[in-house]
């Protein structure tokens, strides 16, 4: 913290003394308090990525290297061309800190923010996905409270805006007890024309600058002390620590914005987030090579006596800035009038390349528009934590229970059990696009009405694996999330990420970040997946115990399915069909659910990713899809092979007869074979008559495939070929255990 005195007022800024001096030298004068506030926000870690930027440059340039990428990192959302004239926008970001303080409004306003980011790209938001992480639920009322109200906050906000929540993930782990993670992702769909109409830039001098949406209050104004304060002003106790979400106004903003874009007169669009109006305007004009002259007294405020600093830096929710062609002003304003949305014409753009803001007669901001984006970077130190060597050598104890007891325990564990309690509260069908229902697939699948094209989207990562080996763990996140969309019949098209890490000033925490980014960058290059956006959330550390969260590079993948007949779901379908596993199982129990649930162990050797093999498997699966040889597909994830088989049996209550004698290539123990979390495996259901053809193709694609069993009517999973003899599992019992864990813990 640096204290800076400006006239009579005092401001606590995160800027360093040398940064303040740089600003003074560049401007050749002292900045006004409003200008200083703008630099402080725009140069914060959150906005400027000053610690992370040097690492993020490892990602290959998506716009340059992939012809279908329309917008890459640095924009409000990534946008890709998916053919037939359609553009798909998507982004994921974190809302961890507000949600930890107030889960309901924190999560709700997180949804609000991500919706605005998508809207900025000129397209309609059509789906939400939410990866969440909390402390364990059992015996922990605080985690239960956070979980309940985060889910309710997402549900109330998402449902009201009419955007279906089609997927997500929930993980419970003690390292998220004091720092929960609430990541929010949104997908938008529109025509390429819509997208072109709404750049987040003001390219043309003479256009009108309009503010539309909610009123401006003193939200997010901290660390500033003004000399003159009237007695009527509210104290800190009267001020909420987080903002109140207003999904109804958001819904109106969505409709009014989309209708305004359809007029063809909108030439630039930007949502108001960190730094409020001042930053939105400096980005619009700075990136567009123009300037602007603004009268800030035109802005509609919610509280009396707001000064220029407060108005220009307010972070009040539900506001959008529009750049509008002069001849279209009335038509655009008429759209806002129709929706009864408050709006104000603040001024016009010009060719000065300077942002000038007037408070009546007073010039309160007078900055070269690009000055704010020239933030410095900070090189951070990296150090591999010493405790890792010991953790990686931990070995799996000899099981003290029978295999069936272990499996019944695992299937009911918090991280593996059904998340139906969550998705029942989300309207996952509004929009009439959701064609694969929650629980029926590894990803959410949406149709594009009027075409025979489908979008598959998935989010995920494995924090336990990342904790042990962030480089491999980050790769695994990409392989898993891609595996999820592939299992539903899609080809993965692009990736965005949300990096949740600890304090970057600590070398150990920064090492996790650096390794994870390196892993993601390598993996995406090797598998030809463009990285079209990202978000970094640092400082997820517990101040009391001084420990960071487990590294969580959350991955979001979108893929495309061509043709309704190519949509695949996970439930087993027909008695007599064969069950095939694609990919070998190795002794990779490090950071597995098995270690954690049964032995309370975090260590061991985590899975490694071999992109060459993964790529061959993906190509092989696409070939099987093309030949219509797959009837069900599920990627093998948490809990390993046997849990995946169980999940596939549940919906139609079928059984399987398995024989693993010839599958155990590495002479693994029974528990290793059943519970190992080796990456990139799939279990598929096929017709026995196709067996020879599939095996021939497997040879051709150099992919390891094994026939491990057959589907039976009797809902029993029978496993032969284990070292400990025969294993029998009751599918109905497993299903009941799987379904009842969260309802029982949440007492609903």
């Amino acid at each position, binding site marked *: 913290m640096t204290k800076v005195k400006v006239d009579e007022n005092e401001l606590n800024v995160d800027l360093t003394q040398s940064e303040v001096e740089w600003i003074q030298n560049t401007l050749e004068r002292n900045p006004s308090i409003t200008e200083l506030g703008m630099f402080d926000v725009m140069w914060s870690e959150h906005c400027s990525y000053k610690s992370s930027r040097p690492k993020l440059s490892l990602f290959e340039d998506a716009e340059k290297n992939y012809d279908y990428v329309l917008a890459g990192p640095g924009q409000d959302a990534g946008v890709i061309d998916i053919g037939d004239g359609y553009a798909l926008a998507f982004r994921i970001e974190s809302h961890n800190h507000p949600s930890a303080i107030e889960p309901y409004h924190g999560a709700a306003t997180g949804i609000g923010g991500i919706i605005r980011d998508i809207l900025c790209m000129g397209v309609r938001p059509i789906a939400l996905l939410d990866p969440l992480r909390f402390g364990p639920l059992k015996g922990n009322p605080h985690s239960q409270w956070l979980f309940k109200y985060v889910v309710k906050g997402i*549900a109330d906000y998402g449902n009201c805006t*009419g955007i279906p929540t089609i997927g997500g993930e929930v993980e419970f782990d003690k390292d998220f007890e004091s720092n929960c993670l609430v990541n929010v992702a949104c997908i938008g769909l529109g025509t390429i024309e819509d997208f072109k109409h709404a750049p987040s830039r003001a390219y043309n001098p003479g256009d009108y600058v309009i503010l539309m949406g909610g009123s401006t209050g003193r939200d997010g104004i901290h660390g500033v002390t003004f000399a003159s304060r009237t007695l009527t002003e509210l104290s800190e106790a009267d001020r909420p620590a987080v903002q109140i979400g207003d999904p*109804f106004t958001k*819904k109106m903003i969505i409709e009014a914005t989309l209708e305004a874009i359809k007029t063809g007169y909108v030439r630039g669009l930007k949502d108001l987030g960190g730094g409020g109006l001042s930053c939105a305007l400096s980005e619009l004009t700075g990136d567009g090579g123009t300037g602007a002259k603004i009268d800030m007294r035109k802005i509609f405020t919610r509280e009396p006596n707001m000064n220029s600093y407060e108005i220009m830096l307010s972070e009040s929710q539900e506001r959008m800035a529009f750049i509008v062609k002069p001849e279209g002003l009335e038509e655009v304003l008429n759209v806002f009038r129709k929706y009864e949305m408050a709006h104000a014409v603040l001024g016009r753009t010009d060719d000065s390349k300077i942002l000038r803001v007037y408070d009546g007669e007073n010039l309160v901001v007078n900055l070269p528009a690009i000055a704010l984006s020239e933030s410095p970077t900070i090189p951070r130190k990296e150090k591999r934590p010493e405790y890792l060597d010991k953790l990686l050598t931990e070995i799996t104890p000899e099981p003290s229970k029978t295999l069936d007891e272990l499996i019944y325990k695992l299937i009911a564990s918090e991280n593996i059990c059904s998340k139906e309690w969550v998705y*029942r509260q989300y*309207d996952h*069908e509004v929009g*009439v696009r959701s*064609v694969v*229902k929650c629980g029926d697939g590894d990803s959410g699948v949406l149709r594009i009405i009027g075409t025979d094209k489908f979008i598959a989207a998935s989010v995920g990562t494995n924090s336990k694996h990342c904790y042990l080996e962030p480089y491999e763990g980050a790769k695994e996140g990409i392989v898993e999330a891609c595996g999820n969309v592939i299992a539903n019949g899609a080809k993965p098209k692009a990736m965005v990420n949300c990096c949740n890490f600890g304090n970057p000033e600590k070398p150990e925490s920064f090492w996790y970040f650096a390794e994870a980014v390196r892993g993601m960058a390598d993996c995406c290059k090797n598998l030809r997946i463009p990285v079209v956006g990202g978000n970094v959330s640092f400082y997820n550390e517990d101040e009391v115990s001084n420990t960071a969260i487990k590294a969580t590079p959350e991955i979001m993948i979108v893929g495309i399915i061509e043709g309704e007949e190519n949509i695949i779901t996970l439930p087993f379908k027909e008695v007599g069909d064969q069950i095939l596993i694609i990919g070998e199982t190795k002794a990779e129990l490090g950071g597995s659910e098995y270690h954690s649930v049964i032995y309370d162990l975090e260590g061991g050797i985590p899975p490694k990713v071999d992109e060459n093999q993964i790529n061959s498997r993906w190509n092989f699966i696409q070939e099987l899809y093309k030949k219509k040889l797959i009837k069900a597909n599920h990627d093998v994830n948490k809990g390993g092979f046997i849990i995946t088989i169980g999940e596939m049996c549940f919906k139609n209550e079928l059984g399987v007869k398995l024989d693993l004698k010839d599958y155990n290539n590495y002479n693994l123990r029974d528990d290793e074979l059943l519970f190992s979390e080796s990456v990139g495996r799939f279990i598929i259901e096929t017709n026995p008559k196709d067996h020879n053809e599939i095996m021939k193709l497997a040879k051709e694609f150099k992919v390891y495939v094994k026939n491990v069993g057959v589907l039976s009517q009797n809902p029993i999973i029978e496993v032969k070929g284990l070292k400990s003899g025969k294993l029998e599992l009751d599918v109905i019992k497993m299903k009941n255990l799987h379904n009842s864990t969260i309802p029982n813990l949440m007492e609903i």
Partner: protein
Amino acid sequence: MSVKIAVIDFPGSNCDLDTIHVLNDVINIKADLVWHNYFKESKYDGVILPGGFAFGDYLRAGIIAAHSPAIDEARVMLEDGRPVIGICNGFQVLTEAQFLPGALLQNDTLTFICKWVMVKVENNETAFSNKMNIGDILNIPIAHAEGRYYIENLKELEENNQIVFRYSNENGECTKDSNPNGSLANIAGVCNLERNCIGFMPHPERASESILSPKGTSHGKNFFNSMVEFIKKRL
């Protein structure tokens, strides 16, 4: 003469485009999406109040929309016998506007519920059920937080045959388990005495295309086809 239906777009409606899609592209009927302040009844043969959260459901679901000028227009249609249909939030608006008896209270689970359920047809002489048979069991999703139907005088409703749909199991039994939200007598939809105004909590527009249904059904079409049939008989 061709049938023309209006779907009212209240601020906060969110199933408006879904309903228009089904009417225009699945049922092939001319339907307009009409902003609530601009709605003129004289141009239409029937009106649908769609699902969503009109005015954010603030204060009470449906109450603020019930004061919209669109409701004054719809009242004219109600009185001269044209079909006035409320789906989900539209049903809540119709009870708040007192077009229909009863009220829709918070689900007994205290949560929003989104899931596919079964409903049984109880009255097939209404503007939203005349293409069905009594006892038909339909597969259709619900998505609401306030869908628990309540009325003080249930007997009168039953005597007047105003219960159009009830939640049931696959065998048509209206059990407690098949009642998703705790509605009185498993009621999912009711009508007025004239049978031209119907409120229905589940979403037929989400059940009109087999691709959207977990069981491959498209029962939702019967609702809209009934509406069209009712209009054609009147013309």
